[in-house]
């Protein structure tokens, strides 16, 4: 956390809790017991889309599967699967106003 400085006790507690979000696996298991771990991402709230529907397909989902493309930009574990929107491909989604209708307009990106 470099751009926010925790000042009071509660802020320090929040900072400690969120700092533990990413753990390097080669570092071995955490030696101290961690507090409740709440990942921020699609598992944080019930955000249907990437699951399958009751029949094992995707037709019956309450939100279109294509919506995931946008749900995963920021917080989830997909950065390797979507183009780098900040540096190389800021306009990648430029033609896609509505994921449900326009997802075919999203093109492949070759860095």
């Amino acid at each position, binding site marked *: 956390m470099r751009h926010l400085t925790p*000042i009071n006790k509660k802020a320090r507690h929040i900072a400690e809790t*969120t700092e533990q979000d990413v753990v390097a696996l080669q570092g071995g298991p955490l030696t101290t017991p961690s507090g409740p771990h709440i990942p921020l991402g699609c598992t944080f709230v019930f955000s249907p889309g990437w699951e399958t529907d009751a029949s094992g397909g995707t037709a019956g989902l309450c939100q279109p599967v294509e919506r995931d493309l946008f749900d995963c930009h920021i917080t989830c574990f997909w950065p390797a699967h979507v183009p780098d929107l900040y540096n190389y491909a800021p306009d990648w989604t430029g033609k896609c106003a509505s994921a449900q209708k326009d997802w075919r307009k999203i093109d492949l990106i070759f860095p």
Partner: protein
Amino acid sequence: MTLLRRGEYHAFDADGAPYVYLVPSAGVFRLDDTSAAVLDALGEQDLEPSELVRGLSDRFPVADLRATVEDLLNVRALRLVDRPVEAPVASPPRKRIPLTTLVMNVTSKCNLACTYCYEYGEDKIVEASRKPRFMNEETARQSVDFMFAESGESPMVHLTFFGGETLLNFKVLKSALAYAKERAVTLGKTVDTSLTTNATLLREEIIDWIVENDVGVTVSMDGGREQQDKFRIFSNGMGSYDVVLPNIRMLLERHRRRPVGARVTLTKQNLDVESIYRHLRDELGFWEVGFAPVTTSWQRDYAIQEDGFEAMLGQFQRLADEFLQYALAGKHHGFSNVRDTLEEIHKGMSKAYPCGAGLGLMGVATDGDVALCHRFAGSDSHKIGSVTGGVDRGKQEDFLMKHHIANKTDCSTCWARPLCAGGCYHEAHTRYGASERPNLHYCEWIRRWTDTCLQVYGTLAERRPEYLAQFDG
């Protein structure tokens, strides 16, 4: 499409730097240029992350912006628009909260006849004539037993004597405290004692007892002679200043082991906070002075109206500034309203309830009925048990559910709710006839006062963090 939006927080500046007070977590964070710019950019509209980053990329490195957005999302200063915000749900405490403070109303009688008194004045809620005027020794002992029985694992309990005028029942005070100390030794607990008095009856013998027993004292007093004698009068209309003055001098001179505080009731006619403070702190020598506006329905002559709240705020702010200068210089300042709020900010308290009434604090009436707090003691409609029968858990839970901040719709969009939580139940009862109502008449005042205290806090955190270390315990 995922849009970013500002989360719930209050932004403030302290000592030239930008800060946020997060709601409802009550975390205080200092922003750097990048995080301040990100929040600023989202002030007018929600933005897609790539749009946001592009807009600021001429001022900050892209990697920094991305890291900042992540930080801000983590602490919830930002949120994703399509993620629902969890609605708070009222729930009783998961564990039983031990009783740590018992306020014993040892008498409902008073030798003064202060016009604004909530116990006797026009807004009284307790019909005192239906209850014994004095608590007897047996009920006092039973109250002490009740206190220890309800204190659970807590190693320390606070016993506070209150009235009426507490010292009218000195005999019972003495025996109750002696009994409490004896029980504490048997049970391996510590008992801390304090009392509130109008100081008219303080005499040598009583002061000796106070000193000997290390009793904390709060004196209800409104300022200098003219201020005190406006409302704090005897029933024949005579002012009480000249009676209390020598007593207070004697108390302050002899009771050196514990700080003695003054508690001032502000009214429309008595709003000169600074001169009251000067008199009580500088001239008389009280260790600290706390101010509270009179609790009353709005139409009373002494009720503080809107312009009065405005004037009061200005004076509070000036005294708060003085407090800050003293604290920066490592000196004690006695304006306790600031100190209390600083402590709550430092700990990051985010309250479900405005105070401990009905939870860790209860009040006992002269007949042994237990109520939410001393202000409701004796009111049948706010009774939650008795010292002999214990706490009625059903009633207590009912009370807690009804008064939870999640049920105060008006508070749900207010950034000051982690500290205010709707304000005093008794004030709400007097003003609106319902203790569960939030005190909407002073919302704006509370927000501005909280903002002032946050600024003091931020400045101290930056320039004299060791001052704040005293609240770490």
